[in-house]
């Protein structure tokens, strides 16, 4: 059993589980660096997931779905951008209400536009096609997981590198970090804090839209109410664990993706799914506790 336990399906599930969390966590990383606490990742993702299905249903093509997901994610995050970046409202309260608004709005539209409640699925709809990377795909065990995925999976890993380079090696990245760390100083040096915060929020919304796209069109073609199931919050946890540094954040996402796949695998071994479904949340909480305790030990007790 131990030999077959971590099989090719396990790693494929893990990569599928990582992708939406990673895309949302990258959005959270950018927000955190510019000094906004973005807890609306969950809601933006849910809106993206719904828009992807609605776009490809009414637009008739996969491209329409992709476009709809990105646009809807960015538009929805516009509410956060206006409230938090422009009007300087409390980002936590705005985030909570946006998450609840997303859940309510997508449920409402699911009922009015598609006439169903719960889940809408259309097997005739085309999901994101899997692309084969020659060579990689034929590796044993991890081959299909790494070399036979959709474009979004590859894009998400490319974005980790791009955002890491952007933040540390470009003048815009420097200004962005400056606004997050010392807004007054950055503004004195001529950076427009509002513009940066606004754009970062919108780009984050587009990334969350892509995360939602991966959920609804990535492997199956369906939307169900609250299908994000806390992934946006796990992404927030990943940003915390990785201290908003892209590579560390990505590593945290890998951990959560693996625990997701582990839950599914244990379910395959006959454990009840109500319990195994909790695996990613428990692993996330455990990781936060361990990281917190370690930090305390180095920094000494707080207050």
């Amino acid at each position, binding site marked *: 059993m131990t030999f077959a336990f971590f099989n090719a399906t396990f790693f494929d599930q893990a990569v599928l589980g990582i992708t939406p969390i990673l895309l949302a966590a990258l959005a959270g990383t950018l927000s955190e660096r510019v000094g906004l606490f973005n807890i609306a990742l969950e809601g933006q993702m849910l809106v993206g997931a719904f828009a992807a299905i609605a776009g490809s249903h009414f637009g008739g093509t996969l491209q329409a779905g992709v476009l709809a997901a990105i646009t809807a994610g960015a538009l929805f995050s516009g509410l956060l951008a206006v409230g938090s970046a422009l009007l300087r409202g*409390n980002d936590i309260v*705005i985030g909570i209400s946006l998450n609840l*608004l997303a859940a309510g709005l997508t449920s409402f539209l699911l009922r009015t536009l598609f006439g169903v409640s719960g889940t809408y699925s259309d097997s005739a709809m085309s999901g994101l096609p899997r692309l084969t990377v020659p060579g990689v795909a034929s590796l044993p065990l991890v081959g299909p997981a790494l070399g036979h995925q959709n474009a979004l999976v590859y894009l998400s890993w490319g974005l980790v590198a791009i955002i890491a380079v952007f933040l540390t090696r470009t003048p815009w990245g420097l200004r962005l970090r400056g606004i997050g760390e010392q807004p007054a100083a950055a503004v004195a040096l001529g950076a427009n804090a509002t513009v940066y915060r606004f754009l970062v929020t919108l780009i984050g919304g587009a990334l969350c839209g892509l995360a939602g796209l991966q959920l609804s069109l990535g492997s199956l073609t369906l939307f169900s109410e609250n299908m994000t199931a806390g992934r946006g919050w796990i992404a927030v946890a990943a940003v915390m664990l990785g201290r908003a540094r892209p590579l560390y954040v990505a590593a945290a996402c890998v951990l959560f993706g693996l625990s997701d796949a582990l839950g599914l695998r244990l379910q395959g071994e006959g454990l009840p799914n*109500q319990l195994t479904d909790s695996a990613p949340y428990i692993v996330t*909480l455990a990781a936060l506790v361990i990281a917190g*305790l370690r930090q305390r030990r180095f920094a000494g007790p707080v207050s």
Partner: protein
Amino acid sequence: MTVASGVRARLRRPIAALVPVASALVVGFGVCGLIALWVGLSPSVMFDQLIRGAVEGPQFFETVARAVPLVGMTLAAAIPLRAGIVNLGADGQLALGGCAAAIVALYLPAPDGMRLAMALGAGMFVGAAYAALAAAGEIYAGVPLLLSTWLLTYPAKGLCGYLVRTPLRDPTTAWPSTARIAVGARLGHLLPGTPVNQGFLLIGVVAIAVIFIDRRTSVGFELRLRGLNERFARYGGVALHRQTLGVMVASGAIAGLVGAIMVLGSQFRYTDGALTAPQYSWSGTLAALLAGGEPLGSVIAAVLFAALQTGGFAMERSVEIPRVLTMVLQSIVILFLAMRGAIWKRS
């Protein structure tokens, strides 16, 4: 200062506080009217049905019955909010509390009245203990409550779902639920012929206690102090860690009590998902935010939202507008207020 000007000043403050709330309600209703128009429905018919469905005839008692758990969940959200703490895990505390109450009411070998009391106590205890877990995470490991409370809801709901599917499953029903609780261990009706049960009294006592503690005791004063300025509260000698724990225990106990009341007073069994489906914790969080955590205002907001939810059911039945629109309305009201910076200043 003359007496008259003093009275005027005392009146002016709440009225000034109500202006943004009223404008937010107008915006919320306006947006929902536009959504109704967009999907091809008449807003005037919709709002007519919504309001009649909330207060007309027997519907009024439906609203009262719905207000009981909603006021409870609102208080569970308002107590931490008062101190600037967010408990997003009320759903998990609610489910565990309801499940624990069902188990005690079904299996504890004790006289009826004792069993009922123990079941209510078990609900509160389990809810409080689960919330305390999140508080401990923040105090000892610095895991933010905002995150841990939310993430803890999933294992809680999963555990209850497992229990009623396997060890506690009543095989005679189609749903994953426990057996039916005996009549003697239930909360009785308060008003015969209406859905209002004795839980009304329990939540009423809790609400009065929370309002009293908030306004008249040092515990309430320290809570408000922290909500206004945490650093000042610390400097002033408030034991923040102990306060965090206390706030979460109180919040979790109330959420657990609501779960117990729903199980013992109206559902008479714990059914998977039945306690969280009406989304009382969602409405409760929004109602508490609407009032900025002030308990009396929160209770009033909760009753308003209970009326909206009840009206939503009637609206769905008569004009076939999905009642989830009332949830959209509630979120838009809070979103609008928060964007205007009317709820909490930036820290």
